């Protein structure tokens, strides 16, 4: 570890917070209907879009109507993307003559991008036409982020409503997040990325005659427009197979920092939005302190292990230094490490180094962050998970101290607890059960690259990433088989929508309740003591459900490595 590297890690996270928290104020104004300075631009543009889509702005929706519209449009967009992937070989904008995808790969990819997961069983430069990259991939990278975002906003409205049915108008929210947040940010970021070296062209691959007389085919394409929303929307699905390790996606250390900032700001901002909606800034502050601390600890655990390097390599070959396998030199060990932590905390899933080649204990960090799924978390769904665990923490603490559980003035009753428990339990269920099936079958194990316990980690990582809608991979696993395409596709869909449905049902039932004024008997949720209990609850729940699997995977591999060192 170096001083510069450590300062660099802290600086990245500090920049994310410094930009994200003020952005929260802007987002809150957008979703409470406040006018913006750019109203003369936004307003006519939105009116045009409402007209084209057929939206009546004045309609209020209850949770069921809101959810129905959300699910329906997601389903429609998934079908649309599926058709593009199947037919891209016959469609225009395909200078490199890439054929259509098989049914299972097209299903997996459509499920992956509609759920904001961006798990990729295909290599972009080999299996995706420019039309697929723009009209399907870039498109869904906007709308899937928007879906998670408006789900969180609608949930918070339900949480703070007083004896009401309405949680807003889905179509208005869904269009506004595009016109007022995602599209302006993406345009600015994409142009900046082009200036810093990310290609943006419709010309096909370039054949180069190399300096020593060989030839090299260099893939390129409309990369910057995808890259911008890939990060801003916490999507993570890359244009190229190597993702943000590819110099065309992430050409310098500076662009890597920008990409991390882009993936973090909106998730960070959402906590501030939440604080403003519940009119309690202390609540937001408590969450910021605990979540940032966990993120920092995670980043430094990765950095310490990567900077120390691989002791087996040192022992066998006599060379010493950081673990650089699967890493890019322009990022070095420090920036690569903080990227590992951030991409799994914010459930982006972009990678600037190959996670499969991380040291065992470094690999533990992305596992844990995806299993918690709330260290800020992905666009919107991170906040939903945070509130779900707040509800469970309120309930448990209420039981312990003998107080009626309530949160933000709403009584928590049997119905809410049942739904929150469902939302909580589906996550481990969709990870552990499919992993067990995969490691017990030939179809599952034949895709593994690395031998031993690390091979088990590859499978566990795949289903964890799918259920958490993350998208990063221990990419040695060959996922492009019917078994993994179908099973991972289903896990991504269930991992996304089951918890959204359960949380919407909670929002619906909370919205109807009257707000009870806080009294001396109210359990305060905005204290650091409560924050500590909140962390303890999700860590213990995570540890208990996932510990056996992690013991077989990364923890077991670490012990194996140590015993091999001692054996010599």
């Amino acid at each position: 570890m170096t001083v510069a590297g450590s300062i660099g890690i802290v600086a990245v996270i500090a920049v994310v917070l410094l930009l994200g928290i003020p952005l929260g104020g802007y987002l809150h104004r957008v979703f409470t209907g406040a006018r913006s300075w750019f109203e003369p631009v936004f307003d006519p543009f939105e009116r045009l879009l409402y007209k084209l889509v057929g939206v009546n702005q004045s309609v209020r929706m209850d949770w069921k109507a809101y959810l129905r519209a959300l699910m329906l449009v997601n389903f429609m967009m998934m079908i649309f993307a599926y058709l593009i992937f199947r037919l891209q070989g016959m469609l225009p904008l395909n200078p490199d003559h890439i054929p259509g995808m098989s049914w299972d790969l097209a299903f997996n990819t459509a499920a992956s991008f509609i759920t904001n997961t961006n798990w990729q069983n295909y290599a972009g430069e080999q299996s995706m036409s420019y039309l697929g990259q723009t009209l399907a991939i870039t498109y869904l990278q906007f709308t899937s982020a928007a879906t998670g975002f408006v789900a969180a906003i609608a949930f918070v409205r339900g949480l703070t409503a007083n004896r009401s049915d309405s949680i807003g108008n889905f179509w208005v929210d869904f269009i506004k997040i595009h016109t007022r947040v995602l599209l302006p940010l993406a345009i600015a970021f994409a142009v900046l990325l082009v200036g810093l070296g990310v290609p943006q062209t419709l010309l096909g691959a370039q054949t180069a005659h190399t300096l020593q007389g060989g030839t090299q085919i260099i893939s390129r394409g409309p990369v910057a427009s995808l890259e911008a929303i890939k990060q801003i929307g916490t999507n993570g699905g890359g244009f190229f197979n190597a993702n943000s390790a590819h110099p065309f996606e992430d050409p310098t250390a500076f662009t890597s920092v920008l990409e991390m900032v882009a993936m973090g700001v909106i998730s960070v901002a959402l906590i501030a939005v939440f604080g403003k909606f519940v009119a309690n800034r202390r609540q937001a502050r408590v969450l910021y302190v605990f979540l940032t601390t966990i993120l920092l600890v995670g980043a430094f655990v990765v950095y310490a292990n990567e900077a120390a390097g691989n002791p087996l390599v040192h022992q066998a070959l006599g060379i010493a230094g950081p673990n650089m396998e699967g890493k890019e030199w322009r990022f070095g060990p420090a920036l690569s490490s903080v990227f590992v932590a951030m991409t799994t905390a914010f459930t982006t899933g972009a990678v600037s180094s190959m996670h499969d080649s991380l040291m065992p204990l470094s690999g533990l960090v992305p596992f844990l962050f995806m299993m918690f799924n709330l260290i800020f978390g992905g666009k919107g769904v991170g906040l939903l998970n945070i509130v779900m665990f707040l509800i469970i923490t309120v309930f448990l603490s209420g039981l312990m101290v003998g107080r009626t559980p309530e949160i933000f003035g709403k009584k928590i009753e049997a119905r809410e607890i049942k739904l929150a428990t469902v939302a909580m339990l589906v996550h481990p269920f969709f990870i552990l059960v499919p992993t067990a099936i995969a490691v017990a079958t030939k179809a599952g194990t034949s895709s593994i690259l690395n031998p031993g316990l690390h091979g088990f980690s590859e499978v566990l990582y795949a289903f964890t990433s799918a259920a958490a809608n993350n998208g990063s991979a221990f990419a040695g696993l060959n996922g492009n088989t019917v078994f993994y395409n179908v099973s991972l596709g289903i896990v991504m869909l269930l991992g996304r929508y089951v918890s959204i449905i359960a949380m919407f049902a909670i929002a619906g039932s909370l919205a109807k309740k009257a707000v009870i004024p806080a009294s001396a008997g109210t359990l305060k949720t905005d204290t650091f003591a409560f924050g500590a209990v909140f962390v303890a609850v999700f860590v213990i729940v995570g540890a208990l459900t996932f510990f056996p699997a992690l013991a077989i995977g990364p923890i077991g591999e670490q012990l194996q490595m140590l015993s091999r060192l001692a054996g010599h």
Partner: protein
Amino acid sequence: MINLWRSLRFTIVFAVLLGLLYPLLITGIGNLLFPWQAQGSMVVWRGRVVGSELIAQQTTVPWLFHPRPSAVDYAGNASGGSNLGPTNPALIAEIRRNLHVVERQNPGVTVSSIPTEMVESSGSGLDPDISIPDALIQLPRVARASGLSRSYLAGLIARYTQGRVLGIWGEPMVNVMRLNMAIVRRTGR
């Protein structure tokens, strides 16, 4: 039914807006403002594209600097890392092979002075940069084979060295394509 119709309209309208108009807008602005970067930072020499400044290419001749090892043989259309895990014996074998190549090509180098980034494969397989120690290990070989003086090459490395961004982000590095183009221009090969 009304929702179904509206969903269909949304899907089409926003596909055109976000999936076509937005990428085309960026393509237009990008090529107007930054035409070289937008097309992939291609390097032209004697009227031919010889590669991209951002993409490492297969280089084995002794008179040029070599990029970091690639798990995909520097395929510019098939990026990727080895994905070998830290306890996989194949990883040790791969690094050993790379180590032998460095030792053979740069006689006199001591193993303990070889940095890990010089023998461990990059994440993309196309890493365009090398570390300063890596470049300095290659310097005597390049000097011998190219006929350029050591001091000239040392000056070249110093000139093209890029430090950490703001002193904290990244690592000191030198771009292999820039180094090699300088050698090509100087020697006229």
